[in-house]
């Protein structure tokens, strides 16, 4: 019976982990694409600014970024109240959602952090496409948008799948950091058991991660196979 209740609790934590993972991924990909365009901009000021932003975000620990996103707005606000704390209360009392504010703060930090990493992968992918592909589109009268969406994009996607799968797998495990600002994800749940001297659930969480990452790996293999009909 104990195994069953622990599994059930861990599953609840794992749902938060999955939610964080999916939302970060869905939001960080478009933002990353936007940042990659900015770091490739011909306008030097834009390019420079975004290069510095990417440097800062990749140069500071994700855990520190979580703290900054969570605490800094409160420190800067004239009332001295932490807006995420207020959001926590609001969501809890109005909608019955636990730790909603912390979850949103985590999401903001994760999306920005992962968008920065993704942007560099996208930049590498886009810049690796030969000039001839753009020129072929141009002499055939295509617009810039058409060249990107119909000619370049699929080639970029094929190129970036291996580095992206690496980054996405890392994201699965980075979600565990969210606990430092109070998000109750799977490891936090296990840790609560540990504080009651039940240690084994901590080890048990590994199985959840392994299973999830295993499924993701299968998915990436499938996509790679699907795209193997052409060479870039």
């Amino acid at each position, binding site marked *: 019976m104990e195994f069953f209740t622990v599994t059930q609790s861990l599953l609840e934590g794992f749902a938060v982990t999955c939610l964080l993972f999916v939302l970060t991924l869905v939001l960080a990909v478009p933002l990353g694409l936007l940042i990659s365009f900015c770091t490739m901009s011909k306008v030097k000021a834009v390019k420079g600014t975004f290069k510095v932003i990417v440097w800062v975000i990749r140069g500071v620990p994700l855990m520190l970024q979580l703290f900054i996103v969570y605490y800094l707005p409160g420190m800067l606000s004239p009332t001295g109240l932490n807006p995420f704390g207020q959001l926590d209360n609001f969501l809890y009392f109005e909608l019955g959602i636990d730790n909603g504010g912390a979850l949103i703060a985590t999401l903001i930090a994760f999306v920005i952090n992962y968008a920065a990493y993704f942007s560099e992968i996208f930049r590498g992918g886009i810049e690796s496409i*030969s000039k*001839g*592909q753009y*020129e*072929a*589109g*141009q*002499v*055939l*009268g*295509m*617009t810039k948008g*058409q060249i990107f969406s*119909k*000619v370049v994009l*699929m*080639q970029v996607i*094929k190129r970036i799948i291996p580095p992206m799968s690496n980054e996405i797998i890392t994201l699965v495990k980075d979600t565990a950091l969210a606990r430092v600002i109070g998000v109750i994800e799977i490891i936090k749940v296990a840790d609560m058991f540990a504080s009651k001297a039940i240690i084994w659930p901590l080890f048990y969480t590994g199985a959840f991660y392994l299973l999830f990452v295993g499924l993701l790996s299968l998915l990436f293999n499938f996509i790679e196979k699907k795209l193997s*009909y*052409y*060479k*870039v």
Partner: protein
Amino acid sequence: MAFLEVKDLRKNFGDTNVLKGVSFEMDKGEVVSVIGSSGNGKTTLLRCLNFLETPDGGSITVDGACIFPVETTDKKKSTNSSTKFGMVFQNFNLFPQYNALTNVTLAMNLREERALKERKVKGTEKKRLLKEAKAKNEEVAKALLTRVGLGDKMANYPCELSGGQQQRVAIARALAMSPDILCFDEPTSALDPELTGEVLKVIKGLIDEDRTIIIVTHEMGFARNVSDKIIFMADGVIEEMGTPEQIFDHPRSEKTKAFLAKTDE
């Protein structure tokens, strides 16, 4: 008035003057071959005609219409004028993710989409017209691929085709946009020697159809046989221009003589 008039065309890359004032004319249905050593501006000339490079000076007139310099800065207009020229590249530049047929139809279909958008056609009407156009384009593409001898390779992807076959798809793709003037930039230079024949044969077939063609080439024999006019470029200018007999049998310029002597070896 000649069909294509290029006057005093200039192009610099930084401090290097690649084109130092190139002028020539050609009539509809003529074939002009551009020869000369590498690095003398032949490819840059073609790239300027196709707007892959913006010339720094001079003018280009096609069929009485000046396409460079254009007074308007309207970007749409400049894409339209660029399709007066078709271009076949040395390295084919096929789109790897599409099969041979889609490589040919893609630009045609996108042109159709743009046209419908400009006419503000929307909804089911747009869908119907687009479907019709796509079916028509597919027929055109199939006919073109059959013409270049690839009727049985339409479903193949570029990575499954030999260099010669890829270049023939590229030729069909350029023809699909029905350009007024077709440009070939060293179309056989990236091919194994045994594959150049099939590509040259296709080009010869186009020439026999009275198409207007400019070829940058190192295939002297081919240039001599098919061209109405030969342009010999040296050091960013047209050193000598004339019929194949004039250039190959009675070159006047010392540079032309030296170049021909080298290619004879």
